[in-house]
């Protein structure tokens, strides 16, 4: 359990994290981690379906959850005076899901609707295809929502088994951020007596996350309902355990594609006017971070866009970034981080995720790493990993 006191914040965030993302699924379990996240809100042994939402929201709070490749988290935002109630409710809900058969069938419909909704967004379909081809059989290549056929076959018993296997005390953590005074001083003691404290640890060792080995390559995809072409590219950087690299990756993607004066935006959108937009995102993941590029353009511009992206990346390999350019990126990343510390929910998410994966740095550390990176180190350590020939590149065009 970790907690951060933010006395000025108007709400407390309680964020329960568990290493039960889609990467822990077997092939037959496709989509079960996310489906389970839905089922958790269908009640526990003590809470009827919908009772959790009702009680949290009647106290002026709200809750939500998100399933990723590596982990899942359930968070509640509450007025400080009601945070004790939220704590009990949340632990009860997450650790003892009821998985009622009738609810299960109904919620399966909801998950299938969620899948259909994402399939109606051609951009999401294109990204899914990029990951499938780039990551191969690794879990990062599989949809978190799952395969339709697997979803249709899931049974409550298999889900209960997945829950027992992964929702174990040594694979969970609870993060609290906000004005925590109302929670009282005996928090740790209360937790020990809660459902969380009474769980017994698993007897089997948890295998480490399987390493990712992104396959470079190229593909082209025709998509109905696409209005503008997309150039999508994916690269692999070191995994989240290497936080210094993560900050370096943030710096590099910012230098390349954040703001009008970043290299890719300036070249492709502002000067050559080849694209409507170009984005480069760092996805922080345990088995290997993914850098994903998306350029939106007319179909006939695709070759030129690809050529220019390549050129910008090669220039960076040849010449380290100038200090002013680097300082601009440092300020953008640093301020983005400081701005996020204003919000209880993002603080809880950051410290919760760190604690879950046993990273023991404090909230200041990322800002220090940011200062330590210089142009030469970036060029030596990270720029080569973003070489054009290391990318998987997908062209998606309107059918």
């Amino acid at each position, binding site marked *: 359990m970790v907690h951060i006191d933010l006395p000025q914040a108007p709400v407390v965030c309680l964020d329960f994290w568990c290493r039960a993302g889609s990467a822990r699924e077997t092939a037959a379990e496709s989509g079960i981690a996310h489906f389970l996240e839905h089922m958790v809100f269908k009640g526990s042994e003590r809470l009827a379906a919908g009772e959790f939402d009702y009680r949290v*929201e009647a106290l002026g709070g709200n809750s939500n959850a998100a399933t990723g490749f590596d982990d899942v988290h359930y968070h509640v935002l509450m007025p400080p005076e009601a945070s004790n109630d939220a704590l009990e409710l949340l632990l009860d809900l997450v650790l003892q899901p009821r998985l009622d058969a009738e609810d299960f069938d109904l919620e399966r419909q909801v998950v299938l609707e969620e899948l259909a*909704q994402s399939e109606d967004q051609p951009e999401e379909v294109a990204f899914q295809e990029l990951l499938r081809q780039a990551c191969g059989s690794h879990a990062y290549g599989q949809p978190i929502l799952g395969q339709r056929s697997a979803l249709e076959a899931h049974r409550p018993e298999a889900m209960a088994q997945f829950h027992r296997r992964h929702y174990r005390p040594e694979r969970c953590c609870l993060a609290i951020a906000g004005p925590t005074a109302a929670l009282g001083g005996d928090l740790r003691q209360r937790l020990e007596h809660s459902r969380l404290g009474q769980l017994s640890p698993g007897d089997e060792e948890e295998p480490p996350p399987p390493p990712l080995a992104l396959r470079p390559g190229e593909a082209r995809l025709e998509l109905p309902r696409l209005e503008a072409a997309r150039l999508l590219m994916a690269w692999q950087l070191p995994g989240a355990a290497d936080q210094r690299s993560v900050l370096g990756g943030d710096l590099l993607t910012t230098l390349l594609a954040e703001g*009008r004066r970043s290299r890719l935006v300036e070249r492709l959108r502002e000067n050559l006017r080849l694209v409507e937009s170009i984005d480069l995102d760092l996805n922080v993941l345990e088995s290997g971070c993914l850098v994903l590029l998306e350029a939106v353009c007319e179909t006939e511009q695709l070759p030129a866009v690809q050529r220019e992206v390549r050129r910008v990346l090669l220039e960076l390999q040849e010449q380290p970034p100038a200090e002013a350019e680097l300082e601009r990126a440092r300020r953008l990343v640093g301020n983005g981080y400081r701005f996020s510390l204003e*919000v209880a929910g993002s603080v809880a998410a950051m410290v919760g995720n760190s604690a879950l994966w046993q990273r023991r740095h404090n909230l200041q550390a990322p800002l220090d790493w940011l200062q330590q990176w210089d142009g030469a180190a970036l060029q030596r350590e990270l720029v080569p990993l973003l070489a054009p020939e290391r990318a998987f590149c997908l062209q998606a065009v309107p059918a």
Partner: protein
Amino acid sequence: MSAPLALAARVEQGHWPLDCPLWLLHRPGAPILSAKLWMRGGSGRDAPGERGAAQLLAGVLSRGCGPYSADALADLVEGCGAGLRCEAAEDATLISLKCASDDAATLLPLLLQMVRSPWLVEDQIALERQLNLQTLQRQREDPFQVAHDVLREQLYGSGPYGHDPLGVEAELRQLGRDALQRQVEQLGAQGAVLVLAGAIPDGVEQRLLAGLEGTTWAPRPPERRAGPPGLKAGGLATSPDETEQLVLMLGTTTTPLGAEQALALRLLHCHLGIGMSSRLFVALREEHGLAYDVGVHHPARLGDAPFVMHLSSSAERAVEATRELLNEWQRLLEQPISPEELELARAKFRGQEALGRQTSSQLADRQALVLGHGLPMAFADRSLEAAAQLTPEDLHRAARTLLTQPCLSLCGPATALRAAETQWQRHPLSASAA
């Protein structure tokens, strides 16, 4: 229930010689400053034949102003790691700045430089126009956007709220420097307010005024004035598309922020669409498994704000989805919600207020909107108090007055459209439209 929520440690009015109220919301703690300059007259005031002009201008304001070229301005702002954006919405053009408090002295002059001395370089206008045209085209990939665009036309026709702030393709193509120059003259003339929130350094007034650089600016304080009306015509519109799901949007035009029954309607919004215990979530998703996303869209507006229920459901469940959605609307007209449901809606209303005040930006944004509507600083707290007095009957009356003659907009495959249409035609809501 009605105890006021903390707004800021200290609220004061800034002193400067302009007729644009300046408010300082001091929040100690993080050394962050957020500024929001709200100027009445967004896409709702696009002239006929020039739809898209407000947004085009908004985009161009940060492409050169005062002593800075587009590149120099981007260097300055990004070099401070700050965010400076200008966007047009239906009722207003909004300039937003977020930065470290230490950089405030450097960056604050930009706000009035953008308003009073934008460069409006032809080449930069051409770029911004091209980007907006491309965005309009790309938005058609999203069936929700398609259904929403059609609904907007059903609700407002060719009136001020009838088009996407990005504009209408054929008209946007024609827009050049002259149209933008005319718009610049109007910035602030219909009412403007500036709100700063966060750790605010001393002497911000002088830094802001430094942006005038010898020019003058004569804005007016915001006043309560009626905004654009809706058509209240009812009816069905369908957009065929080869999607998996059918998107359904059912909506009508209602009333401005701060108007007579607006608060009752806001509580109905909370009841229907806020949180997982909301009526639509429980009835359509939890009980019928009909959809993943369900909700209510009801933004604050100066004029007759839209009130829209929406969901998307598999094409083969079109009949059930349409029937259940229409029944939810009908139910609001036929019976009041229970006292328990009202109590829950009030808790959500209050919770939303607290959640909307987490960051300096959120705080500045909300207060700029309220003040821009000509409402008092204490509007939100007064609304919380007033909400405590409302009864289920008050909400029912508001529903019966405001939620009449809804329009249904559908986007999806042809078979699903036909099935949904049959449901619509046999439902009392469509009969009332005839």
